[in-house]
């Protein structure tokens, strides 16, 4: 019951997506994320400061609030650090693999023949570090698409061109 075979094809001899060696993201991407987090934390701190300033009853809890804030900041940074470490991608001859996640580790695979279009995004901070993120869309909607952040911009452009070339070949 549990073994899934068919006459002509040995499935175990097929290429295994789960054993492909994955590429890590560009190291500089960590700096981009850190910049984003620090801006978020700065705004949060400013918000808390304003609240503390106007509502005086909260001032006895000042140290508790600061402590929670610091704990939250450290947790956020560690979480992002680990999640970036966990991201990996690979481009095979006929498909694209993207792996990510800390608690739930998910691997998404999109065959080139199912790609609808590809976009390359460069955020402000990403541009500072010559990075870009690649969005690969399929007809499966948002859940069926892949976003690879933190690619070297030249590499991302090469990948995009290569994928576009593959797409044209299919048509």
């Amino acid at each position, binding site marked *: 019951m549990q073994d899934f075979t068919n006459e002509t094809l040995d499935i175990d001899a097929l290429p295994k*997506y789960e054993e492909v060696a994955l590429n890590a993201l560009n190291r500089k991407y960590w700096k981009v994320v850190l910049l984003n987090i620090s801006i978020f934390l700065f705004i949060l701190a400013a918000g808390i400061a304003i609240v503390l300033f106007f509502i005086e009853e909260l001032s006895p809890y000042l140290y508790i609030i600061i402590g929670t804030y610091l704990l939250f900041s450290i947790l956020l940074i560690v979480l992002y650090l680990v999640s970036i470490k966990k991201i990996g991608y690979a481009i095979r001859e006929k498909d694209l693999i993207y792996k990510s996640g800390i608690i739930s580790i998910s691997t998404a*695979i999109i065959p080139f023949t199912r790609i609808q279009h590809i976009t390359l995004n460069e955020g402000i901070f990403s541009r500072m570090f010559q990075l870009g993120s690649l969005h690969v869309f399929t007809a*499966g909607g948002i859940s069926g698409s892949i976003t690879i952040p933190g690619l070297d911009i030249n590499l991302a452009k090469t990948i995009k061109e290569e994928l576009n070339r593959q797409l044209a070949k299919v048509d």
Partner: protein
Amino acid sequence: METDFSEPKRQSAAGVAVMFADHLQRSIRVLVFPIILLLVRAKGMNHWYLIAGFLVFLFILIIYSYLSYLRFSFFLDEEKQEFVIQKGVLSKEYISIRLDKIQQVNINQSLIQRIIGVYSLDIDTAGSDKKEASIKAIDHHTATILRERLLNRDAPDTEAEKSTDEQSQKSEPLLKLSTSTLFKVGLTSNYGASVALLMGFIFAIMEMLKNYTEAFQLEENPIKALSTEGLNLFSICALLFFALLIVLGTNILRNFIKYFDFEVIKKKAVLAITSGLFEKKHTLLKPARVQISSYSQNYFQKKLDLMNMKFKQASFGSADEDDKDNKKHDIEIPGCDENERDELLKMIFECIPQKESTFIPNYRFLFLTIMLKVVIPISFFLLVGWVLPHIRPYFWWIIPYAILVAIMLYFEFAHHRLYLSKDFIIKKSGIWDVEHQLLEPHKIQGITTKQYFWHKKANIGHLVLHTAAGTIHFKYGNYAEIHRMANYWLYYIESGKKDWM
């Protein structure tokens, strides 16, 4: 009859009337409450002013409808392979649809259109743009020819069309719903939808009553009086009984209105589906365009050998969620028996999908769901009860709740199965309505495999198949097996030349 669509054409002259009715209906729907309020509040005002105002309004609507009729034109650009619609009174709108993006062309008839004797032609595309592409007034002959042109752009042979037209008139319908089947379907399905409809209706009435009591400054609110008097057990039972009757009644009525005279006819390579009591719906379905086929059955329906079938087509904008827009692309067959199902599946797939190997989720399937739906809510309830003592008398509710949810979760687990054969993926799921979703591997857009880190040792993982008509999940399967499946399907997609649409 004109069959040349290369020149811009207007709608049938009766289109003015249809558009007028359409605009009138829409404006009445928007203005009904302001008008009622105006009538109630402004008792002293001269009624002639109101009537004059109404006449002016009608006159403006007529002119507007005539202008929108004049400005509406459509044509088929053979060179660019596009269908173009131009419209708009104040601002001009230009809609062009690539023929290869067209999924489905429906010819429908609303009550007004039925009286006037015209049809509307709605074009359904796979594109993410939600522009409405429909022609509101067109005669049946032109509509059928235009539909053929739009769908079969490779073989626009007039003679072939005629012969198929004749054939279709002679050929026996593949499936025809009798009144008794419709009745049975109404009795056994769609409880949820009917209850929701009924609730919506009751709330609308209550809201309206509230509005009126406020508008008329009534002192006594009938609803309030009812609730303060209190309901005894007998009246609750009677109420429940009536609610049940109403639910079943609305269910049957809804089914009759929607699926009256339901027929499926096989035309060359497509399925022609017609239905409707007041509003006639004609739909052409191309088997190659179907992404996911499914059939579902509940306990009662199983006893009656009755099932509900659904064919889902690609809808880019809404592939993620089961929203209303997605349902628009679905083609539903409300009732059929096993033989008819097999016939239909044969039409779509050219063979009947078999279940060759079965995959069962791990028993851990139950852990997380029981945690989420039983343990956490109950502990939350207990916690609230600990803080607020007056909730404590209701603690015994926990027992029936836990039993009910546990039974439901058990059935969900027992029905969660994946069956595979070389060319088919069949996913079974559901608690009460047990659904089988059928998918061909080449319709897969992408595959995602997932694993919680604590399941690594147990070698358990989840599989998500992304298609253009939504996703299919298989949870808590053996991860090694999921890898094998994924590798096989990737091989199947990447080595084969089969296109998904």
